[in-house]
C-alpha cells in the first residue's frame, strides 16, 4: 500500500476508467425511457425491457448514459465503473 501512495498515478490513466451499463432486472418495469434517451446503447426487446450493450461505453456517451439513468423512474439503470 505504501508503495502505491508514493508512486504518482499518471493522469492519463485516471481519465480512461471503463464504464459499463447494467440494468437491475428486478427494479426495471419496462417504462422504456432509457431507450429513448440512449438509443445508441439501449434498445427494447419485444416485451419492452431494455437490451443493453455490455461492452465498455465510449467516453462521449457517458453523460447521455447518466441522464438516462437519472430519468429511469425506478432507478434501474446502473452505471458501473470498473477500474483503469
Amino acid at each position: 500500500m505504501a508503495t502505491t501512495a508514493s508512486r504518482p498515478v499518471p493522469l492519463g490513466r485516471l481519465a480512461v476508467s471503463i464504464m459499463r451499463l447494467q440494468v437491475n432486472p428486478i427494479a426495471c418495469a419496462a417504462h422504456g425511457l432509457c431507450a429513448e434517451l440512449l438509443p445508441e446503447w439501449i434498445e427494447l426487446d419485444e416485451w419492452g425491457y431494455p437490451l443493453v450493450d455490455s461492452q465498455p461505453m465510449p467516453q462521449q456517451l457517458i453523460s447521455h448514459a447518466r441522464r438516462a439513468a437519472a430519468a429511469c423512474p425506478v432507478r434501474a439503470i446502473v452505471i458501473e465503473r470498473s477500474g483503469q
Partner: protein
Amino acid sequence: MTTPSLTTTRLLRAPRLFCADDSAPTTHVEHLRRHGPLPAVVGEHGRAAMLTTIEHSGLVGRGGAGFPLARKMRAVAAGASTGSPVVVANGCEGEPASRKDVWLLTRTPHLVLDGVELAARVVGAREAHLCVHRGSAGAGTVRRALVERGKTEGFSITVHELPPRYVASEETALVHWLNGAEAKPTFTPPRPFERGVGRRATLVNNVETLAQLALVARRGAEWFRSVGDPTEPGTLLLSVSGPPQVSQVVEVPTGTTVGAALAQVGVDLEASTGVLVGGYFGTWLRPDVAASAPLTHRGMHAAGAALGAGVVAALPATVCGVVETARVATYLAAQSAGQCGPCVNGLPAIADALRLLARGPWDESLAPALDRWLSIVPGRGACRLPDGAARFVVSGLTTFAADVADHRADRPCASSRAGAWLPLPPVQSRSAGWR
C-alpha cells in the same frame, strides 16, 4: 470395514458417504462407531490448521458451482467484523431429478450435521440453519438426529422448511427467506459471504459438501485426495436414471466417465438417445459424447455441459426428446419468481414455441423467433434461471436435431406419443407460496 452397498462396489473399493444399511438413518451411536468423534478445532491455531487441511484436500462445492470450500470459508471468516458469521446448509434440492441430498439426509444425517458443526467452528459461527424443501423426508430425520446429539454449548442448528420452488434453493433466495422475506433471489451484490443472514457474513453450502467436509476433518487431506480426479478429488453423489428401469443414487470417484457411472448401475446407453447431465439447469448430451466425458466440472465443461448437482439421466429411446425438452421448458417457465421482465416474458414464449414443436401445430415462422428468444434471454435475470433454461433448451434442440427436423416437417415419431419420463413436480401458481 463395513460391507459396501451393492451399488458402489465396482468403481469404489470402499464407499465414503454410503453406509452399510442404506435404508434406515444411521443412529448417532452407529455413526460414531463408524467414523469416530469429530476432531476438536481449538483456538486461532486450530482454525488455521483445519483451513489448511480443507484447502489441501481440494474439496469443491457439490451444489453446482464447484467453488473451492476453503476459499469460501476464508472469505466468510474475514467478514466476521460484521458480527459472528452464520452457516447455512442447503438441502433444498431444487432439481426435481436430483435425489442425492434427501438421500444423504435420510441415511446419514449425522455426517451432514458434523459438517455443519465443523464449518461453524472454522468460520467462528455460533448459529447455523439447515434448509430443506417443505415436506422433504430429510426434515424429520435431521430433527431426530439433532435430538440424539443433544445441545452443544454456545451453538445452535435450526431446521427450516422452505417453499418447494426451483429458484428458492438459490443461495440468495435462501438468505432472503431466512431474513423473513420471500424465498426469491435478490439482485446481487452483496453476496451472502459478505452480508447474508441478519446482515452477517454467511457461509452457504450444499449438504453433500458438508458431509464430505466431516470426512476431510477426520481423515485428512491425503486420504481425501486418494480417490478421484487429481484436480477435483474425492467422491461424488449422482442421481442416476435410464433404461431399462434404473433410478438410484450412487457414489462414484470424481473423474469417472458418464459411461462408466451409468454402466455400474446397469443403464444401457445403447438404448438411449440423449443424456441429461446436471438436471433441468443442465445440458443434453449425445450418448456417444456423454459416454467418454469425465464427471468433473472441467470434464463436463469440455463436453459442453455442466456437472451441476450431479444428475445423470439417460433418456430411453422409446421416449421423445423433443417432448421431454418441451415439458421441462414449461416447468422452468413456471418457476420464474416473476421479478424480471425478460424471464417472466421470455421463458413462457420459449416454452409455448417448444410445446407447438412437440405436439403441433408447428408454424415455421416461429423458428426465427425461438432462436431470437433463446439468444436474448440469458444474462438478463437477477438469478440464472433464464440462462439455465435457455441452455437446456438449446442443448435439447441440438441433441435431438433429427427428431426436431421430423417435428418441424410435421411427422413426429411414434415415441412422441409415449408417456412422460422425466419427473416433474406439479406446477404451482406464480403468486402462491414463496414464504
